């Protein structure tokens, strides 16, 4: 087969150049650790998405006759202080992380960040200046402080808002399902999620702005929106994927931190923040270290995988290493 390929003259080969994303994937597949990290992330996100079907129990199903149980066939990771199945709690926590980080990345990173970056890089001049100074301002403040004040002050407003939505639309059970806290934390995260993405996309667009195909599209009379989304966007998609990977991990971490502080997802809805907080008391830790160690290990593995994957991706994409 290899011989046959080699014997074909170069001019007869149909489009031998593979697409950039294929090259990226192939380079990625060569790094074993990165593949492991990717598998960890995919398993985590799948478990989160499929939680209603995968989790053996509900997150609030308490078995008071069986509290602080060790591993068994019914409860592979044991039970917590209310006799709730730890494995199920971990899976449902993963769902919280998936929902919040996913939603924050789609709105903040993809919608806001990419649009701002494309606009800023392509339009240049005053608009570019305005957007980038705005990004500077967001960057200049420690995020956790503003997140603290936003989530602390806005929680009632958001609950009221969701209650109004319930009355308007007639959909019941939104407030009691914990939707306000999800909405609030995802909103707060997406406000801060666009900055990094916008910067990365902008710098890439700056170098593509003067390229021939953009010039050709412009002289053919294409609108700005068309040039941005049909011509420039596909050519920065690789960079976007990498930036998304990095910020997905960051968003997941921030969600856990805010929930730990008691201003994110409210119990009984599970989150790694709640689980870690509950397991962190010293007396609790002494008697039942697994309550902390199980969620901590899962969270640490996820964060490690994100960082590892991010490292390898930046390494692969950096022009020096090519």
């Amino acid at each position, binding site marked *: 087969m290899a011989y046959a390929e080699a014997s074909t003259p170069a001019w007869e080969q149909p489009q031998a150049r593979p697409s950039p994303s294929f090259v990226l994937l192939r380079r990625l597949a060569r790094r074993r650790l990165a593949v492991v990290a990717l598998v960890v992330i995919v398993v985590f996100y799948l478990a989160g998405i499929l939680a209603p079907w995968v989790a053996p129990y509900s997150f609030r199903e308490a078995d008071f006759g069986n509290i602080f149980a060790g591993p068994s066939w019914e409860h592979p990771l044991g039970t917590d202080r209310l006799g709730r199945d730890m494995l199920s709690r971990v899976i449902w926590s993963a769902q919280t992380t998936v929902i919040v980080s996913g939603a924050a990345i789609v709105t903040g990173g993809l919608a806001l960040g990419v649009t701002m970056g494309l606009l800023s890089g392509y339009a240049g001049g005053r608009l570019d200046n305005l957007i980038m100074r705005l990004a*500077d*301002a967001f960057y*200049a*403040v*420690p*995020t*956790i*402080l*503003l997140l*603290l*004040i*936003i989530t*602390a*002050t*806005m929680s*009632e*407003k958001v609950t009221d808002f969701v209650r109004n939505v319930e009355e308007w639309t007639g959909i019941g059970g939104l407030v009691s399902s914990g939707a306000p806290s999800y909405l609030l934390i995802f909103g707060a995260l997406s406000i801060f999620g666009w900055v990094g993405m916008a910067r990365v996309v902008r710098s890439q667009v700056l170098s593509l702005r003067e390229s021939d195909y953009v010039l050709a599209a412009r002289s053919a009379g294409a609108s700005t929106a068309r040039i941005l989304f049909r011509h420039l966007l596909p050519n920065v998609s690789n960079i976007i994927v990498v930036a998304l990977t990095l910020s997905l991990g960051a968003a997941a*971490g921030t969600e*856990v*931190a805010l929930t*730990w*502080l*008691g*201003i994110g997802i409210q119990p009984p809805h599970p989150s790694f*923040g709640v689980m*870690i907080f509950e*397991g*962190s008391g*010293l007396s609790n*830790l*002494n008697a039942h*270290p697994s309550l*902390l*160690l199980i969620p*901590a290990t899962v*969270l*640490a593995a996820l*964060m*490690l995988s*994100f*960082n*590892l994957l991010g*490292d390898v991706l930046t390494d692969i994409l950096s022009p020096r290493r090519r």
Partner: protein
Amino acid sequence: MQGLAPYVLQRLLWAPVILFAVSVVAFSLGRFAPSDYVELQAGPRASNETIERIREARGLNDPVYQQYGSYVLNFLQGDFGDSIIYRGVPVEDVILPRVWVTVQYNAVVILLTFVIAIPIGIVAALRRGTWLDPMAIGVFLLFASVPVLVTIPILQWLLAVQLGWLPSGGWEVREFYGVEIGLLSKRIILPVLILTLPGVAGLARYMRAQTLEVLDQDYVRTARAKGLQGFTVVSRHVARNALLPIVTILGFELAALIAGSIFLETLLGIPGIGSYAFESVKSRDYDSIMAIVLLGGGAFIGANLLVDITYGFIDPRIRLGGEVR
């Protein structure tokens, strides 16, 4: 030095603008978002008249810009409003001693982080390709990845409860000429250790990458070709140039420390500004929250300003606007 003045000026003018934006955001969130701001201050049994009197006395019936103006004026004069947690005590009297506690152990953390991480990073880069390399990268990555809210309880349990080497938390001070200093107590070891570990790992990782960049440069090869000793090449040529961008890391480091001290102080029972931030958010002490956000933001912006200006001095490319000449 040509071109440095406009650069510094631009940075200096930019900092107040950001601070202004932060203060407007913090102010509007704190004053107008909660429906029960005054009710909280008045207590659960206050009558409508009392609430109206407080509104009038606090100027809450004035136009918005006037309220903001008087808040900023008061803030600049050191009047941060009244604490709700400690009823009637001015916020500045609660906050400032707590800031001092947090500053003390964080200063030690920053110092230790830089002193330990820089040599480790350089050595890791020089040992690239040996068996030490993947191990070093793995250890750095692991410690930089694990969130502090996981390491705090684990280290606390391990070092204080299981092994009994250190006190499990708290804060102890001794007086020196009227200044309360907590540096000499055994209790400072645990918080410093917890915050230094991820800091060192992150910085060493960055330092290793920087050193590798510099090792590839032509001038390093020239220095080697001249026959300079290995140590001289590393200390004179490699380390110096790799250290330049490290200055910028200080900003990130500070943000991580601000976030870290909230968790750390809450779990270890340290009476610093971080645990107070947590408490005031929980009890909706808006004057305190705002003061903390403004002070924290101010410190962060100030530190980054300092970093930017220092960097402009060190690296001529920055102040020339990134143009290659």
